[in-house]
């Protein structure tokens, strides 16, 4: 049987057990080669040059948009390349801000990553609106029923994660989307932890916007996407102004601007062209692997981690039902600081994350001073899990 690890040079070059995939993933050779090849054979600026090389670069960058859009069941003109999911969520908030009036409501949850939390407070402050933060269940899982109950006619935006980077919980976004639309609200989804692991179809989910990062799905850092319905992108205003995002600018004591077509209206300046090419190569790799195979693989390994932790008397957050969660297991070793645990595991070449994982309100609401997080991806195997559990058990 083919070993997935063979495709990832770093996993051959370094003797590590890499379990920090919720932070970033390793890159397969095909992604590294795609970026290298772009710079060696196709590099030029896009949308500007008349010569053939520039046309090639343009076609590759536009093709990357097509590829990424198709991957999530969206359209190219609705898929804006950004730096990462954080930028995507901030951009979504900016685009949607004019829909919010004084006294209106934005709904989010206690489980959100800071990136899907702070931008909504900022926009609410700007518009005189309020943010309702829906508490989680006792185990940290999103409470869909409570979210749905909170949605009313004053609700303009519902911002919710699709999968948690702490509890691993997978949110039933479809039901929330239905409730939001019934009340005339827009639903923005943080897909940073779901798009890399679950087959996504934005139309089937019935959502209005989805943000995700390439680097969490085998792609390069510095590139991600905000998918948003075209009518929302059309009505919104760009966050950044500059080159490539305008068709015409006239100034005759008065400014007149005609913005470029979607999605370029939202991509000011020379973008991360090679990053886009690498992003598309990552999508190609994942589709060859089979998106439908990822979650079951991770759940199998996560289950083993959960069982191993239980045997050691180490509690973890999130649902116990493996079907409701992905390959993220965050835990607290009794009597030990999470940083110390991660520091120690690092000396055994086991790479895990410790702290609040950019979800401090969630930790505080659960009364936990940080957790240690093991997060899985396609190249992890039983051996990784056993090495991790063994190292943890051996901690003095």
């Amino acid at each position, binding site marked *: 049987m083919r070993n997935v690890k063979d495709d990832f040079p770093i996993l051959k070059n370094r003797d590590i057990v890499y379990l920090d995939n919720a932070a970033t993933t390793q890159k397969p050779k095909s992604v590294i080669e795609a970026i290298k090849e772009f710079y060696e054979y196709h590099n030029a600026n896009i949308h500007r040059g008349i010569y053939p090389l520039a046309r090639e670069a343009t076609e590759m960058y536009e093709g990357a948009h097509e590829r990424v859009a198709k991957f999530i069941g969206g359209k190219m003109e609705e898929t804006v390349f950004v730096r990462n999911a954080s930028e995507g969520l901030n951009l979504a908030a900016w685009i949607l801000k004019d829909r919010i009036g004084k006294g209106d409501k934005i709904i989010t949850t206690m489980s959100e990553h800071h990136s899907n939390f702070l931008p909504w407070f900022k926009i609410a402050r700007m518009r005189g609106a309020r943010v309702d933060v829906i508490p989680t269940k006792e185990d940290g899982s999103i409470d869909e029923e409570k979210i749905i109950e909170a949605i009313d006619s004053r609700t303009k935006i519902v911002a919710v994660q699709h999968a948690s980077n702490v509890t691993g919980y997978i949110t039933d976004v479809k039901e929330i989307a239905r409730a939001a639309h019934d009340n005339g609200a827009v639903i923005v989804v943080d897909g940073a932890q779901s798009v890399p692991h679950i087959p996504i179809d934005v139309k089937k989910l019935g959502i209005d916007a989805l943000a995700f990062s390439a680097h969490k799905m085998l792609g390069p850092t510095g590139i991600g996407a905000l998918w948003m319905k075209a009518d929302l992108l059309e009505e919104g205003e760009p966050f950044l102004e500059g080159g490539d995002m305008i068709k015409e600018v006239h100034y005759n004591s008065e400014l007149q601007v005609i913005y470029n077509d979607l999605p370029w209206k939202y991509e000011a300046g020379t973008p991360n062209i090679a990053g886009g090419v690498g992003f598309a190569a990552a999508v190609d790799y994942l589709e060859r692997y089979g998106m439908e195979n990822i979650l079951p693989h991770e759940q199998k390994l996560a289950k083993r981690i959960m069982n191993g932790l239980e045997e050691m008397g180490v509690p973890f957050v999130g649902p116990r039902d493996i079907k409701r969660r992905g390959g993220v297991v965050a835990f607290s070793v009794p009597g030990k*600081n999470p940083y110390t645990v991660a520091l120690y595991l690092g*000396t055994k070449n086991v790479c895990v994350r*410790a*702290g609040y*994982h950019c979800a*401090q309100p969630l930790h505080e609401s659960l009364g936990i001073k940080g957790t240690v997080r093991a997060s899985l991806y396609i190249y992890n195997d039983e051996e990784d899990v056993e090495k991790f559990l063994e190292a943890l058990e051996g901690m*003095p």
Partner: protein
Amino acid sequence: MKTYDLRNAGEGCIDNPALALLDVFAKRDRELQVIVKAEDIPLEVLRDVARSCGYEVKSSREEDGLLVAVLVRS
């Protein structure tokens, strides 16, 4: 010999005693002293981390929940 007092390191993702300790080792001092809360970084863990960063614990003492250790580059 420089002394690094890590008792007041934060508890956030980008500021905590573990990262502070790694930052100290990255300075590559020939000999140094660290003061940490023993509950943050116990001596056994400090030894392992020091070794993985090219240091050895030369001497150590614990009092009132504090660990004071002298480390030398190995």
